[in-house]
């Protein structure tokens, strides 16, 4: 009697989500690092505002030195949307001429692709905000940061970036071409900035626009960042009208957190649905 050896394939263990997520984030970072446009272009406008326009406005309007500090934080509110929208653009490039089709056939939940991109958008935004703040300090602009204040600043910055990146991913998933995506960027990244108290208090706006501004996540984010780095709670007061700055900050953080959660969940859903025809 003869015997036969039968090779039984051993199923490969299911990879943990963190491994693929790290791979996706590293890939996105490597692609971004080879596209200097994504790193430097979003910085140009905010730095121009912080270093050129704000001092000019201060002189022209005869305001005090703290106005430069206010505008420096305000420009963070321009930098984050611009940077996240640029990151969203790379999603379209990846879909049209990159390896996204291959990634969609990988044995991983497709939402990981969104989270991997988000991690890199967060890291690059953090780097750019750091550069902006460092340049502002080098230019002689003063901040009054405490440990607690920095945490408020970071919380607002991170959550607002997460929410804005979710918005960018949704737009990238729903828009077929780069040209159409770019045409929508000013309305999403720049228009709210003029309403959110970046250059002047929202109470200076016409009454109905003040109400509109109170519903913008950017208004809450900027008020929180100023509370954190400048100890200035006037932005929070203009939104909530309360007397306890910490309570108002917590409420605004909840608004920005809700924005981040909602947009991230929506972006994963929209991306996953768009990936399957």
């Amino acid at each position: 009697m003869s015997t036969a050896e039968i090779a039984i394939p051993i199923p490969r263990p299911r990879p943990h989500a963190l491994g693929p997520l790290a791979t996706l984030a590293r890939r996105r970072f490597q692609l971004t690092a080879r596209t200097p446009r994504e790193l430097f272009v979003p910085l140009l406008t905010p730095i121009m505002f912080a270093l050129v326009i704000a001092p000019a406005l201060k002189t022209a309007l005869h305001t005090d030195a703290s106005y430069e500090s206010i505008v420096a934080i305000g420009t963070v509110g321009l930098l984050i949307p611009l940077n996240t929208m640029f990151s969203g653009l790379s999603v379209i490039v990846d879909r049209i001429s990159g390896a996204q089709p291959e990634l969609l056939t990988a044995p991983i939940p497709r939402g990981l692709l969104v989270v991997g991109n988000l991690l890199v958008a967060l890291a690059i935004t953090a780097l750019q905000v750091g550069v902006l703040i460092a340049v502002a300090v080098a230019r002689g602009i003063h901040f009054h940061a405490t440990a607690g204040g920095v945490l408020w600043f970071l919380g607002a910055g991170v959550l607002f970036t997460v929410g804005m990146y979710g918005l960018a991913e949704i737009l990238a998933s729903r828009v077929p071409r780069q040209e159409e995506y770019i045409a929508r960027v000013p309305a999403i990244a720049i228009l709210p900035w003029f309403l959110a108290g970046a250059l002047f208090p929202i109470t200076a706006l016409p009454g109905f626009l003040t109400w509109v501004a109170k519903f913008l996540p950017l208004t809450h984010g900027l008020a929180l960042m100023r509370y954190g780095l400048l100890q200035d709670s006037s932005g929070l007061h203009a939104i909530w009208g309360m007397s306890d700055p910490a309570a108002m900050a917590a409420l605004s953080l909840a608004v920005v957190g809700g924005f981040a959660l909602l947009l991230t969940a929506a972006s994963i859903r929209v991306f996953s649905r768009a990936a399957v025809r």
Partner: protein
Amino acid sequence: MNAIEVTRLSKTYPGGVEAVRGIDFQVEAGEVFGLLGPNGAGKSTTVGMLTTTIKPTSGSARLAGFDVSREPIAARRVSSVVFQEPVVDRSLSGRRNLEIHARLWGVEPHEAVARINELAGTFGLADLIDRPADSYSGGQRRRLEIARALVSHPRVLFLDEPTVGLDPRIRAELLEVIASLRNRTELTVLLTTHYLEEAERLCDRVAIIHAGRIVALDTPGALLAGLGRQLVELRVDGSVNSALASLRERGVAGEDAFAVGSRVTVPLHEQSSGDAIAAIHELGLAGAISAREPTLDDVYLRLTGDSLAAAA
């Protein structure tokens, strides 16, 4: 267990376009299976459903036993795809492209290193593997994509029109590469193409797909054998239907004779081409007559009334 099992699979896109209409086929493990048909026949939609990027409207499909709709991640784990269009991260090196695939498909890092080096050697990429993929020629990039698909030891490999858009020299080179995959006995390959010679040369069995339906499925030899050893082709000036009727009445043509435009094709089963041509001349039907061996294009033409080369 079959490597691929497709049962009454259909896809209707929004707007009512029926791309795939209830197709059935099975592919055994280790088999090279071809889906042959022109553009728009439903080949890529079928591959899209099997690779879980297109949602079937009805029916089911299994890869190595995993249902693509109910267990999509498990189905993706046992398969890899080489796409019709180039799909690589061009600014990354060839090695990095392969590493990313290995990581996402769960290949252990030390195994991935060895596997990538082995595949780079096998596919003639050893000297370029550390260069950015955008410096590769079209053929090199295609070889990189095939190597990438093999990094994870897939049980099912999909090649979706892998030679489309390549110049003849690179195409010939790539066909050699694909032919070499037949030596990997553990690998099942589903190849879509509209090139007849690719299907004849590479596939164990071929399904001819037309307007979303499989109209024939067999080995290339059996499909060709259905048309006999030779056929006669003639151009008719008048009515092709009358010509066909006359040929059948005279016993030159059987029921499998067919006409497309002014061209009538008569498969010859028992009679010689000389006898058939003499009979056609006696009937005074044609100005130009030729005899030749049948091709898969003739099989396709008889089944669909349309030339594969023209339809592609």
